């Protein structure tokens, strides 16, 4: 079993199916569903990834969806080295130096 009652999990659900999107959205968006992700504490006794479950969000709302992650965490970071940026600091400093400082 991937998750037990009370575990902090992330669920996924479709809000609007493809083809049922608002008329104003562009074609590429029309072709895909409006999807949603929410986190909360698992209310079911136990569940596996892919099961439809109920959760209680951090503020206490009950939401249903498909279990996608247990103990979710953030993976965003400061990016990789961007060599294209490395000239900027040297350039602005040397421009000020030329100014006669």
């Amino acid at each position: 079993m991937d998750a037990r009652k009370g575990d902090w999990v992330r669920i996924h659900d479709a809000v609007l199916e493809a083809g049922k999107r608002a008329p104003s959205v562009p074609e590429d968006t029309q072709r895909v569903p409006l999807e949603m992700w929410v986190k909360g504490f698992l209310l079911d006794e136990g569940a596996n990834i892919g099961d439809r479950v109920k959760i209680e969000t951090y503020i206490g709302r009950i939401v249903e969806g498909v279990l996608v992650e247990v103990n979710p965490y953030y993976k965003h970071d400061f990016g990789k080295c961007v060599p294209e940026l490395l000239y900027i600091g040297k350039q602005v400093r040397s421009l000020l130096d030329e100014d006669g400082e």
Partner: protein
Amino acid sequence: MSYEAVMGRNFEIMRKAVGMDYSRFESKGIGFDYEKMMEETGYTLEEIKRIQAETGVGNTPIYELRNLTKLARNFAPKGKGARIFLKDEAVNPSGSFKDRRAATSCYHAKRLGYKGVIAATSGNYGSAVASQAAMRGLKCIVVQECYDSKGVGQPEIIEKARKCEAHGAEVVQLTVGPELFYTFLVLLEETGYFNASLYTPFAIAGVETLGYEIAMQFREREGRDPDVVIVTNAGGGNLTGTARGLIKAGAKETKVIGASVNLTGLHMASDIQFNKKSFTTGHTGFGIPFTTWPDRSDVPRSAARPLRYMDRYVTVNQGSVFYMTEALAQLEGLERGPAGNTSLAAAFKIAQELDEDQIIVVQETEYTGAGKHLNAQLTFAKENGIDIIIGDPREEIPGKNIILPKDPGYISVEEVDLNRTRRSYIRNCIKHYNVDKVSEEDLSFLCQDTKSHEVFVKSVLDELGIKY
């Protein structure tokens, strides 16, 4: 709950969720009583200062950017190159000027007895509401447009989600699409929480202290008002509130310039183009539509009406903003942005048009961090097939490449034709209210709402074949 049924209850849901009846300010035709709305439903400047002081918002420091000023003068004609100053809004509790808007919204929600607040935002405002809600003991939900259909999220928006959760908020993350508003309405109805919209009179009044502080701080340190205040423009609230604050301080000669990152050609509701953007705010994708039609916001009448206050509107390219973000860190020791540095990039160029003894103020900064940092943004851009080039920024094509200026002399601004923008706004009014004749009252409203005059408005109405 069907999409149509919920959208159909929009007006009723909103009335409950913002605790005010907008119909009180409506007139029969196009116009409404903006000033009455701001006076009756907002707070006085003194009250707002007190409310914001309670939660540590505002009174942010001013830096004179001496090195960047010197750098700008290297590229300016003799005697030109205004002094560039920066108001460091990043030192607000959650890291941006948005705390000012959130402070008043959360105070108001608490006072009216709401148990929680909801905000539909993918930007800094979410963390601001979450932070202020935590201080006021309110529950908080933030609804974000975050992912494309492959589940790839904008790193900057993911960082905002993290920050909201850090303050105990629930974050509902959605894929691309304006139907976010539907989810937002469903949540408002389900919870009965307050709509901490960015566009209520309380939210905009919250920004007035920013403009007011600028005037006061400059009178104290320089003995006069600044010549130019430059504002990063997206939904228009930052510009509207700041300009109103300057006016309330009596700084009537100060010019207010809006600046947006140029993302022309990218559709904001497109699933494919969503992750081709390297800015999630401060760009033309919000700036232009909200300037030409402010009432597209999540309240019946937006209190953010940038055309009313704008003296000039310029755009800058993405590469120039990244360049200036790096220059700010390297020459001034301030690691901020990047989105908030849009107005800094524009200020760098506009300073070169002004005399050396003039003063130009960049009125905002925002915190930087994982996901938001320029390295994170440019790494993400590369992963999405965007070329990073060092060259002439004027050749940048949004969604295809990002061009970093070869040297600071290549940083330029592009003018947005304000008369064209005003014309679009008037056209939108006519279309939306479906009128073939404009009353005396509406004529005067259109003049005020476009900061223009009767001759101009009448000429546009003539073009459109509308009687007056």
